């Protein structure tokens, strides 16, 4: 009985693994194709079914059907990293306040404030796209990295607050209190005692901010054009019938590669138990 159970277990794991890996394998093999590997119907094995070539990959750096990959990479990196850092800083401060103090303004209380932060994520990008467009135009920040960072902070701040509030709630209040009795003002207690012990939570918040920031398409799409180019927009722009599939696949693969590093970090923390305490 348990032999059958084990077999089914590994079968399920294998099936899902195949499902997960399929788009990557397909993109990988397609990125090495040329016209005759595509137009006659799908092919899979290099040398056996088609002649492999590097033209898809070469086009990443020199145009010719693909995208120039360097600038979008840098722009995405700068914008996402900056917005994430700002969000975590402001978000942790707000989250600490919400965790330790009780706020009241009329009938608005802590739970309402937290709901307000989280409900920002319910806003469909459309609701914000045109006003953001006008706002950035008015501030002369259209098509700029700073403008986009501003917008991304509004999107990522709620995530940072959501994760850090929960995390701070799990640190016993007595530690803050003791720090204050030992001579720290509340701000010093936060900086010297709570923050050093919040690294796991900030890493989780940082990762989610990176993920959601790096992978945004819509706002980059509506708010930037030529001076600033983010990766997702650059790649999707290739999604026409004119672009050859091999350039498309190469561009796609190289764009999603960086966050695989994040996957490594997440898995490590998860399996070492630190993450489990941070997410909940």
């Amino acid at each position: 009985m348990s032999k059958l159970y084990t077999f089914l277990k590994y079968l399920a794991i294998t099936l899902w693994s195949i499902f997960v890996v399929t788009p990557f394998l397909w993109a990988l093999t397609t990125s090495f194709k040329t016209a005759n590997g595509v137009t006659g119907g799908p092919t899979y094995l290099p040398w056996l079914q088609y002649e492999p070539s590097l033209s898809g990959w070469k086009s990443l750096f020199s145009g010719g059907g693909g995208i120039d990959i360097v600038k979008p990479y840098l722009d995405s990196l700068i914008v996402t990293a900056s917005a994430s850092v700002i969000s975590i800083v402001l978000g942790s401060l707000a989250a600490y306040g919400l965790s330790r103090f009780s706020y009241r303004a009329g009938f608005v209380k802590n739970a309402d404030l937290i709901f307000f932060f989280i409900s920002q994520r319910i806003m469909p990008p459309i609701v914000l796209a045109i006003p953001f467009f006008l706002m950035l135009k008015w501030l002369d920040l259209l098509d700029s990295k700073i403008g986009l960072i501003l917008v991304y902070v509004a999107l990522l701040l709620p995530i940072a607050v959501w994760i850090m509030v929960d995390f701070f709630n799990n640190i016993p209040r007595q530690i803050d209190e003791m720090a204050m009795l030992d001579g720290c003002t509340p701000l010093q207690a936060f900086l010297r005692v709570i923050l050093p012990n919040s690294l796991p939570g900030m890493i989780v918040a940082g990762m989610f901010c990176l993920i959601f920031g790096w992978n945004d398409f819509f706002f980059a799409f509506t708010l930037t054009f030529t001076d600033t180019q983010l990766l997702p927009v650059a790649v999707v722009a290739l999604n026409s019938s004119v672009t050859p599939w091999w350039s498309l696949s190469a561009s796609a693969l190289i764009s999603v590669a960086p966050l695989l590093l994040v996957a490594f970090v997440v898995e490590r923390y998860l399996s070492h138990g630190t993450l489990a305490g941070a997410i909940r």
Partner: protein
Amino acid sequence: MSLQINDLTLAVDGVTHLDGISANFERGKLTTVIGRTLAGKTTLMRAITGLQHLDRGALQLDTQNFSALPAWRRDIAMVYQQFINYPHLNVFENVAFPLRRKKLDEAVIERRVRGVLDKVGLKGFEARRPSQLSGGQQQRVALARSLAREAGILLLDEPLVNLDYKLREQMRSEFRSLLAEQTQTIVIYNTTEPVEAMLLGDTVVVMHEGRILQVGTPAEVFDRPASMQVASVVNDPPMNFIQGHKGESTLELAGGVCLSLPWHLRGLTIGEYWFGVRANELRVGQTSVTGQVTFSEVSGSETFLYVDSPLGPLTLQVQGVHIHALASNLEIGIPAERLFAFESAAQRRLVAAPATGAQL
């Protein structure tokens, strides 16, 4: 130097945590605050630290209006019951933390920290992290940190309650000598255990439901508890309470048990009273009353017997190991000269107490 607290009041959701408490704490004296859980001991301490919201009340340190100072400018050190240390710092830095906040000289810090660690028996542990220490060791680090500060006020909130029995006894005597050295400090120590209160305190404050019931030396509180409530808090196992009637020259307890009237009760007016007798002063084998054993518990070299009797349930604490079968009959003697008498009115104040001396 003394700390005066005045009319501290706090009620949350209709529950009174502090009910207009006023008290005085002297420098160089160790005051133990004893009370059951939820008596308000911790709330009182937090009120002194300035981290607890109060509805009403004032604090004064000598002539200085303490209440106006934020917590981080009051010179208070506190040891919690949950072994609180800074997790990201090693033992040395943990103890040094408040000293660094005061911007003391590095040499001074070095000397004081090492000195205190030696005193609490943690020499050689400087580089360890709190997570690598046992509960008792963590609590010693917490104590070391509060001692190194040489603060004006030292608060300890049931610091030994989360340690196991043997460790508690050992550390109790260590604490006693360490705290006795703090002649320049106002020390306040919370506990639920009468033994700790009597052993450590110069002064004992008895609290119940947010009120102070009695303040006095351990002897005073133990020998002359101000009320039945105080008597039940400071005795462990709890005092036995029996209703009864004092006549012209008779003493009749519930269930028709009659005793000869002892001399210290002769002056009482005739009427109904509550009488109290300690568990370790009831005698086995003498025949004031007979009861049935409902439970017996051997603990170390003592036996606790729980008995149902015409007087109500009784608890006995007997020296030595005695085996009594359940539901077996037990003859119990009540030493009339050891009875406490409390009025029947709501407050149940003490009206007569036996001569002092003997068991403590």
